[in-house]
């Protein structure tokens, strides 16, 4: 029997791996979102609030959360892609989004508990270990299988998107918007589809997280902090490779746990400090992430060409 603690770690690795994978569906195509915390927050808070205040089963709550996330994704995504808001601007708009979400949660403190967070009311009465209707299980093994299923589903979606025409088109789009548009590919619609998928998956991740941890907090499930964590987790592992984000999740978690075991709680933010430093180094020296770089070294392929930011500019005679 695997002990509870290793199980807990594996569950977190798979769950965050799944969430990072969802993020990188967009990220690898140049749609770098700094706002996915909003979707996770929507997932987590919607189920908990509907359960606590209205007695909605988290299954129904999850559907509501997904609908909500879809609406937000379209509301923000459609105008963004229609008006060609890309790059820096897109990243900052999505950043605004995650902050709005976090602030709304805090502002509605009477309902949500504000910065203190909230806990879903327990459905495990009288020593029961499972309440499937309320999506609460005290046995970690059950959670392991649930999360594993989602993780695999996430990888399957990755594969599907990877293979479809849309991905090739988006590749062209992310590199040369003008040319792709002239070939008649409906840029905005393609981007929106990927955004929608990514948002829904992340939202589902939020639901699972809330039900597993049985505690939500605007800073742990929403806001720029968590959004950045997703970005970095995916980058560290390598967002162009299917298993990259999962490797990133494993790396982050194991780093945090390792440091905690070594130093106890004496240096509370040591793991984050090292993580931050490593991220900077990663992006400078290993922009493809751990897994990506490793795979490349193995295959000894030539590196994906990075276009020079600004050439000297003057046309030759």
């Amino acid at each position, binding site marked *: 029997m695997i002990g509870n603690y290793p199980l807990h770690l594996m569950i977190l690795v798979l769950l965050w791996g799944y969430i990072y994978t969802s993020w990188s569906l967009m990220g690898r195509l140049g749609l770098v979102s700094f706002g996915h915390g909003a979707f996770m927050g929507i997932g987590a808070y919607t189920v908990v609030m509907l359960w606590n205040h209205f007695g909605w089963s988290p299954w129904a709550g999850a559907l509501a959360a997904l609908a909500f996330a879809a609406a937000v994704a379209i509301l*923000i995504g459609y*105008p963004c892609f229609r*008006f060609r808001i890309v790059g*820096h601007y897109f990243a900052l708009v999505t950043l605004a989004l995650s*902050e709005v979400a976090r602030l709304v949660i805090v502002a509605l403190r009477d309902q949500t508990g504000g910065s203190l967070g909230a806990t879903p009311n327990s459905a495990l009465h009288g020593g029961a270990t499972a309440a499937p209707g309320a999506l609460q299980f005290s046995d970690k093994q059950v959670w392991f299988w649930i999360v594993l299923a989602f993780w695999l589903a996430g990888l399957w979606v990755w594969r599907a998107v990877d293979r479809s025409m849309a991905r090739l088109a988006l590749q062209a789009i992310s590199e040369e918007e003008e040319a792709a548009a002239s070939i008649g590919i409906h840029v905005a619609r393609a981007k929106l589809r990927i955004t929608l998928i990514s948002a829904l998956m992340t939202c589902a991740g939020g639901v699972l997280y809330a039900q597993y941890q049985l505690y939500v907090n605007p800073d742990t499930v929403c806001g720029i902090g968590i959004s950045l964590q997703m970005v970095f987790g995916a980058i560290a592992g390598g967002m162009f490779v299917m298993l990259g984000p999962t490797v990133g999740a494993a790396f982050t978690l194991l780093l945090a746990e390792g440091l905690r075991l070594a130093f106890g709680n004496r*240096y509370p*933010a040591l793991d984050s*400090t090292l993580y*931050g430093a490593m991220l900077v180094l990663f*992006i400078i020296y290993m922009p493809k992430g751990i897994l990506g770089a490793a795979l490349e070294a193995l295959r000894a392929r030539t590196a994906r060409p990075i276009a020079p930011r600004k050439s000297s500019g003057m046309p030759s005679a």
Partner: protein
Amino acid sequence: MEVFDIFLLEAILNGLLLGGLLALLSLGLNLIFGVIDVVWICYAELIMCGMYAVYYLHVQYHWPLLAAMAAAVVIVAVLGVILHQFVIRPVLGAEPINQLLVTGGVLFFLQAAATLAFGIEFRNLGVTLPSIRLGEMSFSAARLVAFCVALAGMLGMYLFLSRSYLGTAIRAISQDRAIMPLMGVSPARIFVLASALGGALAGLGACLLVLQYDVHPAIGLSFGPITFLICVMGGLGSMAGGFIAAFVFAQFISVGGFLFHLEWGYVLAFAFFIAMMFWRPQGILGRR
């Protein structure tokens, strides 16, 4: 509207004062972006470092307040240069997203390092300035001072940029970087100068903020996102645009916070930003 609400006026005026400070913060970001074409996502964290610098120099080492502040401005200017030389320069040739991400990494790092070094407690400067009453309205002197200094700082930058050779070069490089060497200007040196100036502006902002707010490692999250949104709304890289946008934003925050609850002011401001992005994606005075 039967009776003119004096407290609404107070909120509007407070918004004005806040706007001045936000305009100063956005100035540094816009300068960096205009010259180097990189967004320092960690800008607010640099400000946080400046705030800690003032705190430690004044409270722990008993430096006179003004000396501590002057030192903080220099310290953050140096941090800006270090950031540019060691973090930004290696990725200048890479995709723009990498540049955003690398400064995001620095954000993470600085917040964590600050927690490690200083702990999570809120630190207060221990300097209390009086409230100034104007009829039934009262204004914090700290805010007034911040507003005046911010305006002075911006005026100084404006004069520097428009009158001096270096200032003109800074404006020129954002319009045509490739031919700067033909003018005898080394782009690399201008980048360092801009980084130092951007850092100095952040340091100045830190001095003004630390008068009003307690410093703690996550304080960057309080005004960082706002500063970016102001810059984007004004047109990323446009200092004049950021100036205008700062005051507009501040009004939303102040009046919105007055009419509803505090956080709703921010929510309104952010929602307004998102709406603005759809109406004018390049920003008020943006060009790209």
